[in-house]
């Protein structure tokens, strides 16, 4: 009995290799878990911040849309023209040139090509009258 103890003291204590591997794997998994957890927390914070920023931008967009709508309302346009002393009249129908966008013909139809913009105008245009 004494002989066996003496041999142990002489060789020193050593973890068995499988146990060491197990501890190393467990430690690695633990560290990976902690890293992933921290990463998730960080991403969560980022997402929250972006959500808040998105809401802020949405609010700003609504406010700008509202302001733009008010700016181009007929009443405001009329007021602005009056303030700038600009007198405008509606053009007569024959003074208006209309640009209509037409779909291009299908390639297999063999029809002669036409410009996408077809100019449609009324007879006797008097743009400068």
């Amino acid at each position, binding site marked *: 009995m004494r002989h066996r103890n003496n041999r142990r003291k002489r060789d020193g204590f050593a973890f068995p290799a499988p146990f060491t591997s197990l501890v190393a794997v467990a430690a690695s998994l633990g560290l990976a878990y902690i890293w992933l957890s921290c990463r*998730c927390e960080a991403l969560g914070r980022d997402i929250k911040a972006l959500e808040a920023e998105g809401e802020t931008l949405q*609010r700003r967009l*609504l406010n700008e849309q509202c302001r733009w709508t008010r700016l181009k309302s007929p009443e405001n346009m009329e007021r602005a023209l009056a303030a700038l002393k600009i007198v405008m009249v509606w053009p007569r129908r024959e003074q208006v040139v209309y640009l209509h966008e037409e779909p291009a013909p299908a390639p297999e139809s063999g029809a002669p090509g*036409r*410009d996408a913009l*077809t100019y449609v*105008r009324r*007879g006797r245009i008097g743009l400068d009258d």
Partner: protein
Amino acid sequence: MTDFGVRCRFAAGILMLALALAGLGVRLGFLHLGAHAEVRAGLAGPRSMRQKIDAPRGTIYDCRGRRNILALDLAAKDVCADPRFLARSNITQEVSAALASELGLRAEAVREALGNPERRFAYVRRYVPEDQLVALRARNLPGVFFEDSTVRFYPHLGFMCHVLGFVNYERTGSAGVEQVMDRYLRGSPGILESQVDAFRHELYTRRSRDIPALRGADVFLTVDQNVQYIVERELDAAVAEHRARGAWAIMQRVRTGEILAMAARPAYDLNEFRTAEDVCRLNRAIGHVYEPGSTMKLVTFAAALNEGTVSPETIFDCENGAWSHAGHVLHDFHAYGRLSVADGLQKSSNILAAKLALTLGDRRLHAYLDAFNVGRPLGIDLPGEEGGLLLPAARWSNVSASRIAIGQGVAVTALQMMGILGAIANNGFLMRPHVVARVEQEEGLPLLRREPQAIGRPIRPETAALMRRLLTRVTEEGGTGRRARVEGYAVAGKTGTAQKAAGGRYIDKYVASFVGFLPANDPEIALIVVVDEPEPEHTGGVVAAPVFARIAARAVRCLDMPSPAADKTVCYAEPRR
């Protein structure tokens, strides 16, 4: 100490430690596995959050799509304060005065709101648009803070107020399109369930349920913002010019029943609907019934011509302006001798119209009134539509037919009168009016699309065509509606001057109206203008017809309506490069 003693003490220590750990383990097991739901709930409660996410309400646009916004949800702030802090700092007076001046409130009202020093929270003003708070934020008042909120905002204030309606504090549509389309506009709220940290900040990784709010659908109206503006401006001018009690007008596309404009005066600011009087909130165009006067002759003449009891050339004796029938005397505004049916309509002879009604008889006249939907709502997609008043033929007296023929003893809304004229303009088809064109989700998914719907066809197309020709003469020389003419377009229409009744008799107050359509030979739009109690002039031809003309002259440009006088369209196609 002996080796045995050491071992005993070591074993005892191990045993105690094991017991302690076992005790803790058992307690832990009880807490986690035992029936301690209230304990667990007590622990989980403060750490969990459940938040209802309000759905943004849909936007309302005019007929030109997403360019012209009429109503939208706007980011706003609630201005709040801490009365206790203000009281302890002894600055309640100064802060109240500053808040009152910046927010346009009465200083006493603000002081009253902040007067309770026991409270930690008080609203100073709710739903303030953010751009109105720039100056207040810059002052950085102590004890004053802002909370996010959303407010239903109408960028054009009182513009189109009777059509749009408003949303109350519970965010429920309470008038107009907001009420009728509430189920589409409202959207669906979302839910957020998660856990929070000690500072009540949400832990994103513990979010257990996240159902986003479904934004309300967008509503597109048939109303044209530019035409509506023209109508409202002219109504304002008419009310001011004629010192009228009120005025209202409707413009409709005759072939589809689409309402292009609808306005009434007095009006109110939609953003301040709480302070508006009931009389201002009433949409008189659909909710106010009045005796129409001579415009009702449209039904009388159309019925007689449709039944073939007369032709346009049939001559009637107009009794030189006074005709006694069934013991009651009926007068014309101007005295006439013998007039043809065509001339009687042009000059709006009461006596001729009454005699026409007698050729029809009570039952047939009532049947035509019923066919033109008099006495029943037309079913417009707006709340508060009245159906008018029409007694059953069995309850008519000896003179009822002769009086109803000229628009007395019967009451209609402006929308109904517009419907009658619209049927004449639309080859006899009476169309159901509507203000909502379609409903779409934000990404363009259509939820509702309103198609033109015919309610009935009270007269034949030939009769309608004949009536169009006769009504065109009303705006020609010698007609009562000369002032309704529009350059470049033939206008057909009818004037109306109705005496108002009060206390069982007619009084010296009038309702002046003009209802017409153009172009007369190929009608596109119909328009009715009604002016309530104009002074000193009170006839439809003098008061309402010029308003009609001014509105129509600009509307035809806005709507790009072809003038029969203009040249044909010529197309030039360029070859593809």
